[in-house]
């Protein structure tokens, strides 16, 4: 019943008994659901690396994680997009946004067996503000010359519960469509006035799979697992690119989104407080985070560059370097927690 509280009390008690030499340190985090599976794998691997550190992660969504971090309920959060200024105000303390892996949001669709669909971001935006309502619209036909599109109305599916994929989708589309910027907004709280709201990635995939003519935005991982085709999006240079591993990694070479590769790509972040009052916990967090952005990246490798991104992708070198540098900002008292080379 008091699972967490009792556990904490037990840990505190046993900590006091055993002494400083072999303390078990517990860390709790919560936040984004998208990378949850990968985080679970990392936690299991790290438990072998550092058995005296026990970390638990609760995937309740980026917003929930930030609120729990603000309340002090958890030690770190996780978010699919960089946290915005109002969230920093809510947290009321300095945090770093630590990129841990690369995610890709795919535009999946249900056109009765049709594959290889191309959708530019402009067309996607037009669909999601209701300007394009049929699959045989001129704009879509122009981008898909070789494909026999069925004469179906488009049923856009969006996330009713917000989430990181909504934030990523809207932010990457906003540059292409003022209508989207004005009517839908950008961020987790963006709201659409066309289409059907689904709950969770599972919900999006469920609706798209069951409604002919549906289109939805969801993590590529989820779409592939459900057997849904994902569209190729415009790469900013006149071509179309599917969310292959290579295309996704190319788009994330720097902190700012760049006009290359697959556009709906982004790092996913851990939100870690800068200042730690408990030096042991802070050190444990710092070491775990460092492990994630260095040794832990190895488990993300593998898979051909031309394959669709069926899992999270490792950080490209520039982002990994940035992540390591960010970790240098973690302190406890006056001392830096990590000596970064």
């Amino acid at each position: 019943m008091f699972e967490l509280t009792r556990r904490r009390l037990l840990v505190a008690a046993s900590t006091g008994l055993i002494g400083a030499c072999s303390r078990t340190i517990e860390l709790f985090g919560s936040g984004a659901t998208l990378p949850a599976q990968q985080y679970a794998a990392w936690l299991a691997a790290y438990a072998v690396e550092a058995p005296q550190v026990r970390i638990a992660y609760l995937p309740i969504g980026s917003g929930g994680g930030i609120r729990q971090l603000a309340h002090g309920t958890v030690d770190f959060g996780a978010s699919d997009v960089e946290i915005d200024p109002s969230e920093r105000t809510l947290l009321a303390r300095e945090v770093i946004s630590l990129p841990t892996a690369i995610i890709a949001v795919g535009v999946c669709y249900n056109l009765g067996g049709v594959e290889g669909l191309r959708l530019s971001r402009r067309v996607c935006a037009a669909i999601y503000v209701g300007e394009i309502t049929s699959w045989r619209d001129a704009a879509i036909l122009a981008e898909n010359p070789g494909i026999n599109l069925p004469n179906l109305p488009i049923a856009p599916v969006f996330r009713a519960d917000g989430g990181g994929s909504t934030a990523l989708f809207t932010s990457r589309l906003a540059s292409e469509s003022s209508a989207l910027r004005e009517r839908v907004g950008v961020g987790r709280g963006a709201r659409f006035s066309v289409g059907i709201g689904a709950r969770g990635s599972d919900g999006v995939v469920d609706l798209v799979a069951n409604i002919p003519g549906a289109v939805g935005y969801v993590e590529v991982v989820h779409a592939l697992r459900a057997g849904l085709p994902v569209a190729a999006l415009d790469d900013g240079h006149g071509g179309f690119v599917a969310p292959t591993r290579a295309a996704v990694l190319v788009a994330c070479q720097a902190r700012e989104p760049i006009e290359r590769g697959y556009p709906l790509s982004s790092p996913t972040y851990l939100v870690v407080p800068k200042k730690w009052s408990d030096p042991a916990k802070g050190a444990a967090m710092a070491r775990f985070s460092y492990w994630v952005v260095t040794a832990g990246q190895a488990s993300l490798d593998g898979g051909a560059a031309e394959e669709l991104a069926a899992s999270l992708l490792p950080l490209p070198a520039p982002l990994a370097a940035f992540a390591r540098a960010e970790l240098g900002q973690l302190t406890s008292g006056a001392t830096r927690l990590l000596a970064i080379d």
Partner: protein
Amino acid sequence: MSRPSHPPDVSAARLQRSINLPDRALSLFGNVFGFVAPVVVLAIIANLASVVIADAEGSAFLSTSWNPARGHFGVLPFLMGTVVTATVAMAIALPIGVLAAVYLAEVAAPKVARVGAVLLELVAATPAVVVGLWGRSVLVPELNDLSRLVGSAPEGHGFGIVAASLVLATMTIPTIATVSRAILRALPNELREGPMALGATQWETIRSVLLPSARRGLLAAAALGFGRALGETIAVSMVIGGRPSLLPSWGAPSATVSSVLVDEVLDATHPNHIAALAALALVLLVFGALTSAGARVLSRGDAVRA
């Protein structure tokens, strides 16, 4: 010698209050536990109100658009969704529920009536999530197919006001039927025998004598059902489509006060967003309290506790 059945004279009981410890402990616990409910109610109201007052931006809540990313926190679309779904649900559930109660109380043979009453209670205990699952897996696709049969292609593909109202009606009918049946059974037999002796048919009796006599109790049952429909959360959120709109239309997805709470409470971080959701929770609280009080006033003294 007949005595009125009421508890013993309070002053006499009080005289007996000795200074022994267990009695005082009982009194203490009684006071503490007795006031848990009112205190919690006040705490909830205070908690929600404090969030609203601290972070709300005046009349922004009364605007007609809900878009947290753009700073719009107009709650009216949700109020519309809640009121429309609850009203349509009641329009369906009230006649069916009362008629079902009439069937059990007046028409059916005693054995059939007993079995029917038990079945009704069973159905009334069905968890909302089970109704929601049926709604989403069976009702929504059926509504979609039905609409296409008559030529319209609903935007919501079955999700929306119609599905939500039907789901609410399904959940409210058993409650209304059970309560109405109890009310009808409590009516004295003279009300049935008198008109029949004068030559009225059973249905003329029911329509002209029984139902009017039971009117107050039936209204209480209706108030109870309406209150439930306003506050029902899970089943509605599974079939409504999650898209707030100020003027809900039949074929399009919509949203209600309770569905937006399910969808957005855990993810909201912006203080205005949280305040708007707290305001919506307060609205639900007030709806519930008002309809419940209304039902109590109407039933005044009858044991109408669902």
